[in-house]
């Protein structure tokens, strides 16, 4: 039953597409793009060879794309050119680039079990650098700045006068929300931190506080949930827009 509905819809769409009489307008590239789009969409019916084929082509293409980009945007300007230049001018500082070159090549030692351990040197240089950068990033961007940003007055001074001025109805509702803003930010962070505290059993008073922490977490997860739905739907709209405007030309 479902199968027939689906086939019917697909046929109807195709007839619609042909009838709209704009198919000739799309370029060859757009046709390829549209076919590949439909190939991936076919996964919605079920996992099938056309989808699998398109998926593997995509993985191959993207890997190949990255190689070319690394070559032209990193290797050529940041390694080959300065190296050649320093060979020509015999500048020792430029020759220092031989070190990362060698470390980069050492990564490929992984493919040869006997010398595989050599690739650790390069891994260590990379992992060490990024670990260091992650430390200072988390420290200055997240830890310190976020603690500082939560040191706010428990009641924002303007909010109470706002409440008095509010005329009722919606305005009164939002004035109350404004009064609650600072206290909820201060308390919300504290109770969330309590939930992620592992050195005491969460029972009694601590248990109650940590339960409030869970509520805050759940509200934030609900917000993320809504936003994620939004994100995915936008991506679908983008694809449908491509099919209907670039390919079929039925919308502008």
């Amino acid at each position, binding site marked *: 039953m479902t199968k027939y509905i689906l086939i019917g819809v697909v046929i109807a769409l195709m007839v619609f597409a042909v009838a709209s009489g704009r198919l000739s307008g799309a370029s060859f590239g757009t046709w390829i793009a549209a076919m590949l789009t439909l190939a991936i969409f076919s996964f919605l019916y079920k996992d099938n060879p056309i989808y699998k084929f398109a998926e593997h082509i995509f993985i191959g293409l993207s890997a190949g794309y990255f190689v070319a980009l690394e070559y032209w945007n*990193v290797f050529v300007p940041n390694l080959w050119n300065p190296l050649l230049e320093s060979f020509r001018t015999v500048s020792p500082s430029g020759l220092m680039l031989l070190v990362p070159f060698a470390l980069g090549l050492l990564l490929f030692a992984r493919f040869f079990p006997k010398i595989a351990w050599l690739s650790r040197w390069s891994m260590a240089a990379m992992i060490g650098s*990024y670990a260091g950068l992650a430390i200072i990033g988390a420290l200055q*961007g997240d830890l310190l700045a976020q603690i500082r940003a939560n040191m706010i007055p428990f009641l924002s001074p303007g909010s109470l006068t706002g409440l008095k001025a509010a005329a009722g109805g919606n305005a009164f509702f939002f004035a109350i929300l404004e009064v609650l803003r600072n206290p909820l930010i201060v308390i919300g962070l504290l109770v969330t931190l309590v939930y992620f505290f592992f050195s005491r059993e969460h029972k009694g008073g601590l248990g109650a506080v940590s339960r409030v922490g869970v509520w805050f977490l759940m509200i934030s997860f609900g917000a*993320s949930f809504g*936003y994620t739905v*939004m*994100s995915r739907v936008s*991506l679908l709209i983008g694809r*449908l827009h491509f099919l209907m405007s670039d390919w079929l030309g039925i919308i502008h």
Partner: protein
Amino acid sequence: MAERKTEERSLLTKLSQIDRRILFLLIFACATIPLLLGAGLRMSVTAPVQGLYDAIDGLEAGSYVWLAADYDPGSKPELSPMNYAIVEHLFRKDIKVISGSLWAPAPPLAQAVFDEMAPRHGKQYGVDYVNLGFKEGREAVMVSIAEDLRRTFPEDHSGTPLDSIPMLEGISNLQDVEMIICVSAGYPGIKEWIQQIATRYDTAIGGGVTAVSGPEMYPYIQSGQLVGLLSGMKGAAEYEQLVERPGLGIAGMVAQSSVHVMVVIFIIFANIVYFLEKRRAR
């Protein structure tokens, strides 16, 4: 009576185990039909979007921004409209744009935005904007260009040495730009720009993210580390409305609304069925 009850129950079970492909068709219809009808909706502008608009609007003509295009085709429908709307605003304000990417698939996407917008505003490559292309190295690149741009980006995307690009003459590092605007699909992206650059080099940062990471950015907005933020296609649509340049963002909003309503109906309906079933079971 008992017979009717079992019938109802089987209907409930049937409804709760409906073939997902029927749901897929409903979603497909909800997204397609509004796009075909093509009506625009006015919307109110949220504070983080207004924040970015005001920050860009406050820049002086002739100042520089670093436009970090850190996204890929996987989130193009959300982020490309932002990129268009932001570049529209920047070009209108005669601000010079330096674009670079930490995501390899980004440079052609960023280039497409410039290719469309530059002729419209009479902007010239190398004088008003430049696309430096992709650089591998995530946070290492961020900190590097904050100290020395040419060491990390000796050439632009098409291989022209930076020293022969006129607009970059007085620019030696990121401390020379007024603001970093990051259009960000994930890691590395706007979070890392904030962590590595915002406080260390005291640079204003704003931008746009996919809706998935939007909620995680709110602490940075409250702390002032982000001057403004566009989240997802809705953020893009609000910005399009502010700069009065309707694009895919606004075009998609009716479809977005109708699919959201459908998903909300799904959740509510399914939970009603769930409660009825649970009550029956008791």
